[in-house]
């Protein structure tokens, strides 16, 4: 491991050295306008594997990439109209724009939904580095998963094991960075941009303002469910998650539940729980084991009946609970407060509108 101090006049030397390391499957730590990033050649499978060992416990979180220009981004992702607008307005800058991948990157960079987050950092050195290297590098933060945000080289090194330190070949030390928030992540692969992290372009959605998605197929509904859960994965692990689904027959409530199961990597077929009121599926997602409870209290009309199901016992960390017919169920279960409410509406035979209220 080598640490080079960045000065006013050694930029090109640093870039040359970094490129040499990247070419040699190496891992570099570099400054950005937000936090320090960990970079490897995003197309190089050996290098990406090294980075994944460094980050540890990714649990399906994708790695975003840093590129130098829009043209370069388009080599790796399909930039749709909505993404294009965001690129024009916000990049370069502290934003990560998620688009569908073109499968030109090494495995493990794209998410399980084959989406890729793209950054164009507002940092002259890095833009120049990527530009000269000619290929995307990974743009994940330099801390190991779950550790302190890295604003200085010490922040990073103090939280690493020896094994992790040995994976680093070069650190570009720009001193302590201004305490800017990590980049805001905006997903443009859905009809409504979903802000996964950060303050967002607009103000943070409050209770009365739902996120609105339009799904054009069952698969898209499943994907939306998966992405919403992905956003809540930390909470699921720590506290569990309760979801209330509302919508008439055929609106896609069970489809949404299937999406939840996809995300949790449940292999069983999710079928309607109307007859048994409750179906229970155990899941194992990246060694996190818990239960998905799928409920349908459509047949119940009395609170005392609902109590029979002992819902309180299901509310536990790592458990995901989804209620179908939530608008009907909430009267029976006043004690249950869902974290997310989803209203599904039939638009046409295939099209569905999903209103997501986050509590």
């Amino acid at each position: 491991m080598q640490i080079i101090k960045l000065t006013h006049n050694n930029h090109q030397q640093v870039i040359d050295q970094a490129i040499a390391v990247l070419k040699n499957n190496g891992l570099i730590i570099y400054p950005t306008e937000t936090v320090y990033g960990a970079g490897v050649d995003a197309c190089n499978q050996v290098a990406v594997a090294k980075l994944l060992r460094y980050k540890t416990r990714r649990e399906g979180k994708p790695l975003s990439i840093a590129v130098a220009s829009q043209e370069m981004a388009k080599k790796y992702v399909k930039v749709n109209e909505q993404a294009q607008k965001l690129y024009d307005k916000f990049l370069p800058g502290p934003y990560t724009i998620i688009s569908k991948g073109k499968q030109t990157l090494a495995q493990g960079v794209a998410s399980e939904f084959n989406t890729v987050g793209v950054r164009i950092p507002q940092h002259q050195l890095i833009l120049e580095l990527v530009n000269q290297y000619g290929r995307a590098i990974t743009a994940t933060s330099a801390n190991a998963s779950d550790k302190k945000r890295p604003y200085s080289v010490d922040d990073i090194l103090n939280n690493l094991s020896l094994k992790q330190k040995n994976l680093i070949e070069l650190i570009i030390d720009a001193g302590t960075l201004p305490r800017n928030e990590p980049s805001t992540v905006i997903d443009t692969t859905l009809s409504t941009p979903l802000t996964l992290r950060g303050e967002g372009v607009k103000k943070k959605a409050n209770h009365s303002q739902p996120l609105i998605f339009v799904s054009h197929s069952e698969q898209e509904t499943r994907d939306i469910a998966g992405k919403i859960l992905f956003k809540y994965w930390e909470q699921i692990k720590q506290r569990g998650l309760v979801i209330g689904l509302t919508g008439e027959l055929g609106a896609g409530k069970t489809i949404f539940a299937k999406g939840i199961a996809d995300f949790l990597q449940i292999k069983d077929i999710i079928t309607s729980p109307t007859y048994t009121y409750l179906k229970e599926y155990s899941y194992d997602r990246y060694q996190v084991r818990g239960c998905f409870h799928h409920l349908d209290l459509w047949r119940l009309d009395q609170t005392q009946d609902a109590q029979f199901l002992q819902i309180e016992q299901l509310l536990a960390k790592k458990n995901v609970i989804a209620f179908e017919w939530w608008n009907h169920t909430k009267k029976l279960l006043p004690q249950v407060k869902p974290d997310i409410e989803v209203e599904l509406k039939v638009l046409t035979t295939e099209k569905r509108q999903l209103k997501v209220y986050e509590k």
Partner: protein
Amino acid sequence: MRNKYVFDDQTKKLPLILGIDTSCDETSASVTLGRMVLSNVIASQTNIHQPYGGVYPSLAKQAHQEKIMPVIRLALKRAGVDFVQLDVIAVTLGPGLAPALEVGINQAKKLAHKWHKPLITVNHVEAHMLSVLLQRKSQQMSIKKLLRERTGHPNISINYHQQPEPAIFPVLGLVLSGGHSQFVQINNFGNYEVLGETIDDAVGEALDKVGRMLGLGYPAAPVMEKLARQGDPDKFKFPLPLTTVNDFNLSYSGLKTAAHRLIKSLEAENKLTQQTILDLSASFQHAVFRHLAYKLNKLLEHRKQKNKQQQGKLKKDQLRKNEQQKDKQFFSQVWLGGGVASNINLRQTIRRILRPYNIELQTPFEKRLCGDNAAMIALTAGYKMSYTRKNYLQAQLKDLDRKPSWRI
């Protein structure tokens, strides 16, 4: 298969089993002797709820808890059996509703402990599938006399599993109920392969839901069956689902949505008259069964082709040998169980599909045995004693836990 019971020495060794089922809405207990149903008590909650019309089951845990002992006692009384005489106690372990299952399991554990009886746990879907093997209580034999000689000794022989002859396997098991819809290949007792199943709603569920949209109360499927007889099944056209997918799975969400839209638009135009409801019931039921028949036929056709291919590969002399057993690999029977199995129209539809294949349809000997009941649980426990190696006589009562999503 429904030959009269031969009461010989072997029969005397048939296991006398108390079965308990609380998998969902029903509390049920039954006593069986081998394949014979001595008693079968179902505290049907559907009877209790019908007067409320539209108010739904009070499935409160208390409902099961209050009923379970009276139901068990009644089952024993009707069978003329005492706890001491029982050989085994059997209970549903899953799949089903967890808190409901728990009531039955706890009670069975208590009884097994109290009376020192082995406890056998049963899969509810397997039991539905085997329910066609249940037999009527023989009228000619004095069961009382037979039972008097019994003291519940555990060293009973279990030869009755040889009936039906193992040669009839493989059999195609068809479980169609409110909670399950599966095609299962039964290679032998305890040896099952799921060939296809519903990917969303169960058959009974689809009927119940659309029935409820039509305002037919709960459960709506039996009402729909009656109404359907007076309606025109061709009046409304429904799509045939999953025709492009090359598997044997069922899907009812599309049909359900189509029905929902149709009912809404009819309501809006004020055209939902009595005759329309009858026609809709008939048409929807027809569509539900048509989908099932389509998939069943596809499955059988596929299996037949596969057999032909295999035979084509065999050499001539082998072929001659195989001549006699050429249908052996093919299903000789279909065993139909589950609540929807009582639907006459469904049975006709299935028979029509089976006829060209020369397959016999077996159904439970009475309607009550189609729905959830404990007789099938007791029966299955009997077979389970013969096919499992596990020594049930040392019941591991402590380790027993419900399995709400147990697959066969």
